[in-house]
């Protein structure tokens, strides 16, 4: 598994497609619901899946654990939402924390973790 994260609009998906020789047909765009479609190589916008989990009262990390080996060959792309002001809205607060727990788990499982900054990648685990 390869984990790619970075702030909003940093060019994360573009980086992944370019560097791993993929195109749009390889991408599953996450929806705001607590299930993932595992039929594509790239799982993009995992934070939206986490928001779905929050709304459905599920723990994203536990679901990812259940998917287990099915995630091993995936490239998972997440927007880092951990560094701003703590949101007043409880739902957004849970979202922020649950995304952090999910990313910690994915970071521990990934063979490679890349952080994207202004379109450029930094391999922080390789």
């Amino acid at each position, binding site marked *: 598994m390869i984990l790619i994260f970075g702030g*909003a609009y940093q060019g994360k998906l573009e980086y992944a497609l370019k560097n791993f020789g993929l195109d749009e047909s390889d991408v599953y765009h996450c929806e705001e619901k607590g299930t993932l479609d595992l039929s594509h190589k790239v799982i993009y916008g995992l934070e939206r899946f986490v928001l779905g989990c929050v709304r459905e009262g599920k723990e994203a990390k536990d679901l990812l654990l259940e998917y287990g080996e099915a995630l091993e060959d995936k490239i998972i792309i997440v927007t880092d*939402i951990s*560094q701003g002001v703590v*949101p007043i809205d409880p739902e957004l607060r849970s979202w922020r924390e649950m995304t952090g727990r999910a990313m910690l788990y994915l970071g521990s499982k990934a063979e490679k973790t890349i952080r994207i*900054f*202004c379109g450029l990648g930094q391999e922080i685990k390789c």
Partner: protein
Amino acid sequence: MNIFISGGCKNGKSYYAQELARDMSREKSLPLYYLATMIPCDEEDRARIRRHLSERDGWGFETVEQGRNICDALGGFTLSGSKVSPEGVFLLDSVTALLSNEMFLPDGTVDGNAGERLAKELREFADRTGNTVFVSDYIYSDAQLFDEYTENYRKSLALIDRTLAAVCDQVIEVSYGFKYLYK
């Protein structure tokens, strides 16, 4: 050499950028310009500008006030009245302020396309000068759902950042004294 610097707020980016610009101008014996991007609208702004001016005192910067249409600075004049040489070293601090000026206009209207236009202008500025240090702000890791104006502002600034990061010779992230060189 064009350099792009970004990172979180109050991280030491500006000070580091000043050092890089000054060193570049000394090495190459080129004039050193500070592009002042803030357009003051009240006494608080004017006080901030005075503080910034005194902080740069003794560094050798000539101040060029240019809050909009940044490429016009290359045919303009410094605060002390001398002509700006495009061959000089420029410190542009910050891209963020420039985008605010271009997007949120004094008459209260909003130019939603300011980001694309400014990205082009700044690429041109980098091409024409070749020795500019650009400073931006990394404002992309909030867990908020913003209103459309704020969201468009973030998206536009990110477009500018990615454009500059692609064309600059060096890209540096500053976080509290720690500097990461992306290229």
